[in-house]
């Protein structure tokens, strides 16, 4: 959009200035009008207008947004979105006003064209919280740390750059991301994760702890930190008390765009309501009422002063919208079912790309509120309401089979949610594509030839279901195993299962972590459905509204879901054994060598002779002493 609005004045400018190819062309209008001042005053006007409109997208911008949404299982979702953008590097040099310098240095040093780093605790509940909306496809992340980056570099330099990048990020975000530097920890998927030309690297640390020390440096990238604006709502204990929190940093950089940094934080909270009996979800019960103060212990007192826009959205799901429509009332902020505590500044209708209407957004502008008149928007329910979120076409889950410490198998199961029937009727011979991407550490040695597929209980040959497969087998202590697979399931399928056998490997004694008995984690697998897009569209929305959060929702993104992390118990040695063995062996050897030396060195005959000699000498000395004594005694008396 920015490029489009800029193109026109640029062309116009070039007609007059021979140096129009310079990247600094927008500075020139100041000189241009002076030349033509005497001839055409009209042109001056045109030029200044053009310069003003062209200069606008070249500024650093910051926007902050918050989206709140009630969830069907009596919880509430809060999604913070902060976007900072910097114009292309050449125009500003190394100086920044709003954009974090650390990030721009990172992008320049490592030639990053795209990067995403997420810290997550808890697991997104795809059944209850939805699996078909932009929130679940973009902001549901696997537990622990996930990092992927696309580099704008020759392929041979990427691995070394990745290594340095992980170290830098670990310093920036106080996390052990540097464990991703070793070649056993990251992989280079070609199409299963994201289509690329071999310049993408992906790594995940499922067991990384996420706590305030990760959030603090993330907040320090914001121009107002957590001192003002929407970020001031981030009261740590309430965030970390939630069921799910995922903190994400997404970077996009290119010559034309400059750098765009999206920081999002998605939390699922239990509204802190007074009545405790509402905790367990029951039909016919009122949803818990909540407001910002209940969720975060804070109210919003105005915006961050440097932000371009600062908005709070309350989103009600399709389920609620349908229910309200069915009852015949309109979806104002105060209707038959619920009341919002403040009247919104704007109302936006959202559309799913398969449905006519999917959700409703109530917009509040934070700049209308101040310290004296803070915003504490919330929802109060009047009638009990039961609804469900749209699920993804298949509910994917992964589990382990087998017992013992020698071998086992990984199973991936797909349960149909019958979504396609709602969407497309049900043609009998249709099929649904699914892409699986999974990385397995080398000590879980997967036999990819043992892939078995069962659909509705009956076994299928691999060629019937698998359209395309790409495997990078693991190498001991060198490479993890990577599996990318494109499957085609029949629409009528109710349940499908894939199994893969594996052997458990042995680690070197130094390679075991201190809590090896807990088991080892296999990172989440990613299942995506390329034929389904979670994009929303907002037909009534004004394009100049400029909401990055809604822009992200409109982006065409494939429906995807992450599976569970698997915990594999490996054979762990008795770590004190080596000490026992060493002590025992040393004792035996000492005894052996001691007695051997004794036997070799000792000459019994000689010893006896020596003994006799000493006895003789001793006797002589005794004799001498007695004689002397006697003489001494004699002389005395």
């Amino acid at each position, binding site marked *: 959009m920015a490029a489009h609005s800029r193109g026109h004045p640029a062309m116009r400018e070039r007609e007059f200035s021979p140096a129009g190819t310079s990247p600094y062309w927008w500075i020139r209008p100041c000189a241009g009008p002076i030349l033509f001042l005497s001839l055409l005053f009209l042109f001056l006007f045109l030029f200044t207008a053009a310069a003003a409109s062209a200069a606008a997208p070249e500024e650093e911008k910051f926007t902050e947004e918050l989206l709140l949404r009630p969830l069907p299982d009596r919880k509430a979702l809060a999604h913070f979105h902060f976007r900072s953008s910097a114009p292309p590097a050449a125009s500003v040099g190394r100086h920044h006003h709003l954009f974090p310098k650390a990030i721009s240095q990172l992008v320049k040093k490592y030639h990053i064209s795209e990067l995403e780093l997420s810290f997550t605790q808890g697991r997104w509940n795809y059944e209850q919280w939805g699996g078909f909306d932009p929130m679940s496809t973009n902001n549901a992340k696997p537990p622990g740390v996930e990092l992927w980056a696309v580099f704008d570099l020759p392929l041979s330099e990427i691995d070394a750059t990745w*290594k340095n990048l992980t170290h830098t990020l670990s*310093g920036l975000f106080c996390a052990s991301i540097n*464990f991703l530097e070793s070649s056993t920890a990251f992989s280079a998927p070609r199409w299963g994760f994201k289509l690329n030309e071999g310049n993408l690297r992906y790594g995940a640390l499922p067991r990384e702890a996420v706590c*305030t020390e990760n959030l603090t440096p993330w907040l320090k990238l914001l121009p107002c930190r957590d001192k003002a604006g929407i970020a001031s709502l981030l009261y740590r204990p309430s*965030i970390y*008390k939630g069921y799910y929190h995922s903190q994400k940093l997404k970077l996009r950089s290119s010559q034309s765009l400059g750098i765009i940094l999206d920081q999002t934080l998605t939390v699922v909270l239990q509204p802190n309501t007074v009545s405790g009996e509402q905790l367990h979800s029951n039909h016919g019960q009122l949803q818990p009422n909540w407001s910002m103060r209940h969720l975060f212990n804070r109210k919003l007192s105005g915006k961050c002063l440097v932000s371009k826009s600062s908005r709070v959205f309350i989103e009600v799901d399709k389920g609620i919208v349908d229910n309200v429509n069915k009852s015949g009332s309109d979806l104002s902020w105060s209707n038959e079912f619920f009341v919002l505590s403040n009247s919104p500044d704007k109302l936006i209708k959202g559309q799913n790309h398969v449905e006519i209407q999917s959700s409703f957004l109530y917009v509040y502008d934070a700049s209308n509120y101040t310290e004296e008149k803070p915003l504490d928007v919330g929802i109060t329910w009047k009638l009990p309401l039961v609804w469900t979120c749209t699920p993804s076409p298949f509910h994917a889950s992964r589990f382990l089979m087998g017992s013992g410490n020698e071998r086992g198998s990984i199973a991936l199961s797909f349960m149909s949610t019958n979504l396609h029937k709602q969407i497309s009727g049900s043609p009998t011979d249709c099929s649904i594509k699914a892409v699986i991407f999974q990385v397995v550490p080398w000590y879980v040695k997967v036999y990819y030839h043992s892939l078995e597929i069962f659909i509705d209980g009956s076994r299928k040959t691999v060629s019937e279901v698998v359209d395309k497969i790409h495997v990078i087998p693991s190498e001991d202590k060198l490479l993890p195993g990577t599996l990318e697979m494109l499957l085609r399931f029949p629409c009528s399928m109710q349940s499908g299962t894939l199994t893969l056998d594996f052997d458990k490997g042995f680690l070197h004694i130094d390679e075991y972590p*201190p809590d090896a008995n807990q088991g080892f984690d296999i990172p989440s697998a990613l299942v995506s459905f390329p034929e389904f897009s979670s994009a929303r569209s907002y037909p009534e929305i004004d394009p100049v509204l400029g909401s990055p959060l809604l822009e992200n929702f409109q982006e065409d993104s494939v429906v995807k879901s992450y599976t569970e992390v698997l915990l594999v118990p490996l054979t762990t040695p008795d770590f004190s054994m080596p000490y026992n063995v060493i002590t025992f062996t040393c004792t035996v050897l000492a005894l052996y060598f001691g007695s051997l030396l004794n036997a070799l060195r000792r000459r019994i005959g000689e010893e006896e002779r020596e003994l006799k000699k000493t006895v003789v000498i001793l006797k002589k000395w005794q004799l001498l002493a007695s004689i002397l004594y006697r003489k001494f005694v004699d002389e005395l008396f």
Partner: protein
Amino acid sequence: MAFGRRSPRSSRHPPALAIVTALLLAFLFSAAASSTDAMHNNNWAVLVCTSRFWFNYRHMANTLSLYRTVKRLGIPDERIILMLADDMACNPRNSYPAQVFNNENHQLNLYGDNVEVDYRGYEVTVENFLRVLTGRHESAVPRSKRVLSDEGSHILLYMTGHGGDEFLKFQDSEELQSHDLADAVKQMKEKHRFKELLIMVDTCQAATLFSQLQSPGVLAIGSSMKGENSYSHHLDSDIGVSVVDRFTYYTLAFFEKLNMYSNASLNSLFTSYNPSMLMSTAYYRMDLYERPLNEVPVTNFFGSVMKTLHTDSAYTGFLAAHDYATPLSVGDNLDDHFMLKDRSTPRRSNIEKEAQLTPHGWTEVLLEQLEGKNTDTVVMYGLGGMGILLALSTWLSM
């Protein structure tokens, strides 16, 4: 300010002779300065919690309490290396998410909004600990994870965990021995990484950990003597575990009364430990330390000095340290040699780093032998040699 303006003006017209004498004097002064001891000009703190698992909550609380204290007394975050072996604040067992308390009254959340943990979880190993002390890192390691101290630094090293006679356990799987610690400290001294070092250890038989120390300028204090245990202070029934150790508790009690400008001496800190309260005898070793303890304020280690050095021009990079053409008036030399020395410090550490990267031939061979790949072959050769020896001795004895 006035001085800053004066020197460039005076240097505009002086005769050549004056310049030469000024340069000579400057050279002499800087030479003399490098031979004398550096003055104390910065503070660092390395705080280590070595225990994993929830029941060792108190060790993390100990470390975080010290972290809070040194931060309150003025050491900035970039000069604190905090190593925490486990995540207690967001541990699922913690009923107070994102909070850590060191007292059952829950008055003070140690895990506030601004904690920077540099090494955590599996990263807290003996290897990383020794690397932090000696400064021998991989080139990719970011600055925030290094101790960038110099010969004017006072370093506080605080460690807590489970220990025994001459060792301290890391993560329940590794041990730091008193020899390792003494060796690391010796290396630090050789590499001019500190002026004075205070080692504070809260563990069982902590005194034994100091037995091998030899480097001058090191002061050590431990929570208990050989054969004694260090005990926890009290149990928090809400959290379900003990929240602080006795030695640290009374250290904090001492510091709570102080602020950045207090003049309390180290001696008053050391004598404040009451064996009947600690249930162990605090031991301090001061034979390697020159200054009398009653003259050293605690803020020399637990606080921070921020000495400003006036320079007559803008910072011009490392080369300026040897650029004698910088015009100086004679009277300013005393001030300037500090400045020159200050600038030469980073350069020196650079040279050291280079030297460190190219070790002598034999060390290279030895290092290669000890590399992970070759340990197996070394062990194999050793075993083979032993077998031959055994066979020979058996044959001889027959």
